[in-house]
C-alpha cells in the first residue's frame, strides 16, 4: 500500500502514532480518575447528605410568583388590585392517574367537558412539575368539600393565590383593560422562566401595554418536603420582585362624569391635558365588567359580549372609526389661511347650497335657506358648509390631506395602548392605490366638511385638538403618568413625549382659528352657545354632526322617521381656557343626532368637573 508514496517511512510513522496513542491512553486514564474521584465524593463523602435529601426528604423547587403591580389613578385611587382567593391546583408529576383524578374532581366540582379538555391540553404542554389550575375562586364551601376529600387526591391541593380585581368595575374596562389566563399564544412571547407560577397576563389596555413593568421578577425557594409533601425546611430561596405600581393620568371622578354624561349613548369621551398629553378621562361605551375575564370568562357570558350588536368589547376610543364632520373645519380653515386661499376678511356667499362650476348637483348647507355672506370667523361659529365647500374646492384634496397629516389624522397617535387603529385621511393617491379609482372633485367638497371617506378615531381627534390648543406643539397622548418601584419609594415620572412642532408660518392664523372657536361657545350665533355660559374663562370648541348614511338629493333628514341606528353621530371638540389651555375634551355620541344638542353639553359637564365648577357652588374639598 505505502509504496504509492515514495517519501513515506512506515516505521517512523507507526512509531509516531504509537507514541501519541500511548500519550492519549495516559491522558484518558487521568480524565477517568477525575471522574472516579468526583463519583467517590458524591457517593461516599457526601453520601449522607444526598441520602438524607433523597430518602427521608424530597427536594422541591417552588416558583414564587411576583405580586403584580397595582394601578392607580392620578389621585391614588386603586383601579386594579390583587385580592387573595383559593384555587384548586394539581401537580401532574405527583398524580398517579391524571385521567381518573380529573374525572373524580369533575364530579365533585361540576367541571364541564370543555374545562376538562382544556386542562388536559395544558397538562400535556407544560412541565410536569408545574402547578396546573383546575378551578379558581373557590367558595368557602368548595374549600370545605375538597378538604374532606383531600385524601383521595394526592398531588392535588387548594392553594391561596392573589388574583386581579378591578374595584371600579366597568368604568375602566377599555382603558385599563384586564388580565386573563396565559394561553398558548402568550406562551410563545413570554419568558417562560419568569412566568413560572404566574397564572395571568395582561390581555388588553394598560394591563397589556405595561405587562413587563407590572409583572415583576419571579423568585424561587428550594425546600425539603417529607413524604406527605409537608415543608420541612427551606434550603435556599430568592424572593420575587413585585411588579411596579403604575400611576395613570386618569382621574376617577372625571371618568365617572364622562360615563354618566354619555348616559345611554354608545360612543367615546376623551379628556386630556394638552401640556403633558396626559389622558384624564377616556371611556368607550358600551363597556363590560373586566372582572369576568380574570379567571376565565364562561362561554355563556362571553358569547353575550361577543354577539351583542353594540360590540361592548370594541374599544371605540382607540379603534372606532368616525367621520369627524364639522369638527374637521377648524383644521381645514387653518389650511386655507396658511396656504393663502382665504384671509380673515374674505367672504363667501351661502345661499344654502353650492355647485361645482359647470355642474348641476347641489351640495347643500345644513341650513336650508343659507347663511348669507360669511367670513371665516362666522363660518366656523355657525358651521357654514358652503364656505368650506368653496375653500376645499380651491384647496384640493391633496393639499388638504398633506396639511391634515401634520395634525396626525390618518396616523396612529402612538398613545401607550395596544391595538390603536390608524383611521383614514383620504387623498387621491390613497384612492388610486386602494380602490384603483380616480378622485372626483365632489369628493373633495364633502371631505372638507369631514364627511366622505374621512375616518378618524376619537384619540386622533383628541390629539389634533390638543395640538391646535397648544398652537402647534405636538405632544403624544399618554395614560401612564408615573411608576413606583416599591412601596415608599419615590414616584418616577414618565417622560413627556413631544413630537416636532408644526411648521405654521403665521402665528396670527392660530389666534384667528381659536378666536373663531371661542365664537362657537361664546358668540351670539355660535352652535354651542350654552357651553361657554357662566364660566370665568373662555372655551374654544367646535360642534360636529356626522352623517351615518347618505340622504338623497331630494330627501330631508327627519329624526322622527329614521331608525335610531341611522341617526347622525354627535361630535364636539373643545379646549379651555382658550388663551392658556389645560384641558381638552372630545365627545362622540353615536347616533346622538346633533353635536350642539347632545355632544356639547357632555363636554360642558367635563369642563365643570375638571375646573371644579359646581352648579350649587358646593365648596370643593381641596
Amino acid at each position, binding site marked *: *500500500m505505502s509504496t504509492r508514496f515514495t517519501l513515506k517511512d512506515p516505521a517512523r510513522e507507526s512509531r509516531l*502514532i504509537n507514541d*501519541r*496513542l500511548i500519550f492519549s491512553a495516559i491522558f484518558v486514564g487521568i480524565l*477517568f480518575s477525575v*471522574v472516579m474521584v468526583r463519583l467517590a465524593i458524591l*457517593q461516599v463523602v457526601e453520601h449522607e447528605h444526598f441520602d438524607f*435529601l*433523597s430518602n427521608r426528604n424530597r427536594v422541591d*423547587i417552588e416558583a414564587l410568583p411576583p405580586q403584580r403591580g397595582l394601578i392607580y389613578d392620578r389621585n391614588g385611587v386603586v383601579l386594579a388590585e390583587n385580592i387573595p382567593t383559593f384555587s384548586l391546583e394539581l401537580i401532574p408529576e405527583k398524580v398517579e392517574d391524571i385521567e381518573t383524578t380529573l374525572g373524580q374532581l369533575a364530579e365533585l366540582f361540576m367541571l364541564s367537558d370543555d374545562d376538562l379538555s382544556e386542562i388536559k391540553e395544558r397538562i400535556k404542554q407544560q412541565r410536569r412539575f408545574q402547578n396546573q389550575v383546575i378551578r379558581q375562586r373557590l367558595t368557602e364551601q368548595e374549600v370545605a368539600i375538597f378538604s374532606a376529600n383531600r385524601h383521595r387526591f394526592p398531588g392535588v391541593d387548594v392553594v391561596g393565590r392573589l388574583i386581579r380585581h378591578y374595584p371600579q368595575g366597568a368604568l375602566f374596562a377599555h382603558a385599563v383593560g384586564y388580565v386573563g389566563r396565559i394561553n398558548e399564544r402568550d406562551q410563545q412571547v413570554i419568558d417562560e422562566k419568569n412566568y413560572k407560577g404566574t397564572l395571568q397576563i395582561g390581555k388588553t389596555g394598560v394591563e397589556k401595554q405595561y405587562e413587563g413593568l407590572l409583572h415583576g421578577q419571579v423568585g424561587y425557594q428550594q425546600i425539603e418536603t417529607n413524604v406527605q409533601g409537608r415543608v420541612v425546611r427551606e434550603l435556599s430561596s430568592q424572593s420575587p420582585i413585585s411588579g411596579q405600581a403604575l400611576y395613570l393620568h386618569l382621574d376617577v371622578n372625571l371618568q365617572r362624569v364622562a360615563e354618566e354624561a354619555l348616559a345611554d349613548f354608545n360612543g367615546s369621551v376623551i379628556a386630556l391635558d394638552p401640556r403633558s398629553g396626559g389622558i384624564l378621562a377616556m371611556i368607550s361605551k358600551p363597556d363590560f365588567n373586566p372582572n369576568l375575564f380574570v379567571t376565565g370568562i364562561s362561554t355563556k357570558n362571553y358569547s353575550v359580549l361577543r354577539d351583542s350588536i353594540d360590540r361592548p368589547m370594541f374599544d371605540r376610543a382607540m379603534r372606532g372609526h368616525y367621520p369627524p364632520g364639522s369638527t374637521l373645519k377648524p383644521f381645514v380653515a387653518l389650511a386655507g389661511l396658511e396656504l393663502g386661499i382665504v384671509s380673515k376678511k374674505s367672504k363667501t356667499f351661502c345661499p344654502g347650497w353650492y355647485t361645482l362650476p359647470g355642474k348641476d348637483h347641489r351640495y347643500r348647507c345644513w341650513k336650508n335657506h343659507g347663511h348669507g355672506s360669511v367670513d371665516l370667523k362666522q363660518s366656523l361659529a355657525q358651521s357654514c358648509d358652503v364656505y368650506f365647500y368653496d375653500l376645499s374646492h380651491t384647496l384640493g384634496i391633496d393639499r388638504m390631506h398633506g396639511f391634515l397629516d401634520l395634525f396626525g389624522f390618518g396616523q396612529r397617535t402612538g398613545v401607550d395602548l395596544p391595538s390603536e387603529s390608524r383611521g383614514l385621511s383620504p387623498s387621491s393617491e390613497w384612492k388610486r392605490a386602494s380602490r384603483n379609482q380616480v378622485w372626483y372633485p365632489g369628493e373633495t367638497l364633502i371631505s372638507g366638511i369631514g364627511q366622505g371617506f374621512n375616518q378618524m378615531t376619537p384619540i386622533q381627534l383628541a390629539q389634533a385638538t390638543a395640538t391646535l390648543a397648544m398652537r402647534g406643539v405636538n405632544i403624544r397622548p399618554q395614560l401612564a403618568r408615573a411608576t413606583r418601584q416599591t412601596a415608599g419609594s419615590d414616584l418616577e415620572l414618565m417622560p413627556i413625549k413631544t413630537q416636532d412642532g408644526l411648521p405654521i408660518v403665521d402665528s396670527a392664523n392660530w389666534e384667528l382659528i381659536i378666536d373663531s372657536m371661542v365664537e362657537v361657545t361664546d358668540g351670539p350665533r355660535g352652535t354651542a352657545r350654552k357651553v361657554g355660559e357662566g364660566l370665568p374663562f373662555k372655551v374654544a370648541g367646535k360642534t360636529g354632526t356626522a352623517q351615518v348614511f347618505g340622504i338623497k338629493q331630494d330627501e330631508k333628514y327627519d329624526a322622527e322617521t329614521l331608525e335610531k341606528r341611522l341617526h347622525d353621530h354627535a361630535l364636539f371638540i373643545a379646549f379651555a381656557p382658550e388663551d392658556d389651555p389645560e384641558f381638552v375634551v372630545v365627545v362622540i355620541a353615536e347616533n346622538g343626532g346633533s353635536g350642539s344638542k347632545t355632544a356639547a353639553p357632555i363636554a360642558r359637564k367635563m369642563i365643570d368637573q375638571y375646573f371644579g365648577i359646581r352648579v350649587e357652588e358646593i365648596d370643593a374639598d381641596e
Partner: protein
Amino acid sequence: MNSDITDRRNPQSWSLTRSLFAIHIDALLFILLLTVLGVGLMILYSAGDQNTALLIRQLVRMGTAFVGLLILANIHPDRMRDMAYWLYGAGLILLISVLFFGHEGKGAQRWLDLGFFRFQPSELMKLAVPILVATYLAERPLPPTFTRLVVSLAMIIVPALLIAKQPDLGTSILIASSGLIVIFLSGISWSLIIGFIIAAASALPVLWYVMHDYQRQRVLTFLNPESDPLGAGYHIIQSKIAIGSGGLFGRGWLEGTQSQLAFLPERSTDFIFSVIAEEFGLMGVGLLLISYLMIAGRGLFIASNAQTSFARLLAGSISLTFLVYVFVNVGMVTGLLPVVGVPLPLVSYGGTSMVTLLAGFGILMSIHTHRRMMSP
C-alpha cells in the same frame, strides 16, 4: 505479539475465535460490547418504569445496529478510504438539506425524512469526518505539513458548525473531537498543539467582552446550571441527589427512589448514568467505567497493531472518541461539565447513536481482521 497466537493454543476458544474471525468479528471486542449492552438493557428496564415495550424497541435497534456492525466489519479498510470523499460529500449535502427541509424534533432541526425512515445526517458525519481526515492526512508522509493541517481543520469545522446550528451542540462537540483526535494522532508538533490551545484560550476573554449582557447570562447559566434551579438546574440537582444517595453499593436494582418516583428527568436517555449510580452505587458505576475503558483499550490495541497509517489514525480516533462520549455524559450528570445532551454510549435509550457507535466498532474489527490478508 499477536493475540491470535495465544488463542490458538486453546483449541476450544480457538474454534470460536476462528469462526468469528472468518466473518471478520473480533471476539474480545464483541464479548465486551455484548456485556455492556446487556447491562444497559437491565438498567433501561429499571429506568423506563419496567416497560417491556420500550425494551423490545431497544432490542430491535440493537439488532439493526449489529447488522450494521457486521457489514462494516466485512468491508476492507481500503474500500473505506476509497469512499472517504464521497461519504463526506454526501454527508455535507445532507446536512445542508436538513437546514432547509429538515423535520423539527424537540426544538431542533436534525431529521431528514426519507419516506420509509427518518435519518439524522449528523450521525453519518460521526464516521465520515474521522475517515476523511485520516484518509487525507495519511495520503502524504506524517506529520502533516501546515497547509494540510489547515485543510483538515476546515474539514472538521464546516460540519461541526452546521450541526451546532441545528442546534445540537453535543453531537457537534463529538464530531469535532473525532477529527481533532485524528490530527493529534498524526503527530503534529507539540508546539503547534500548545500554540493552538493558547490561541483558543486567549480568544475567550475577547469573545466575552464583545458579548451582550443577556448572552453572558446565558453562558453563565450554561456553565453553572444550579444558579437556575427552575430551568436547567432542575436536572442537575435531581441527578446529583440520585448519584449521591446511591452510596458505595447502591439501593439495588429497581429500588432507586429518585428514578422510580420519577424525580429524575430524562432518566432513560441522557441521565441513565444517574440511575445506575443510584441503584448500583460506586461499585456498579466503577465496573461500568472499567468496561468502557476495556472496550476502548481493545480499540487502542487494534490501532497500534494496524498496518497502515490510515488504519491506525482511524482506529485510534474511533476508540478515543468513544471515551469522549462517556466522559462528556458522565461529566454532565455529575455536574462536572455543562449539560449539552450527549447520551451514555451503548446504554441510553435511543436508536441512531447506537447504530453509528456499533458501526464504528465494525470498522475497528475490519481493520483488525483484514490484517493478514494485507501482509501474509
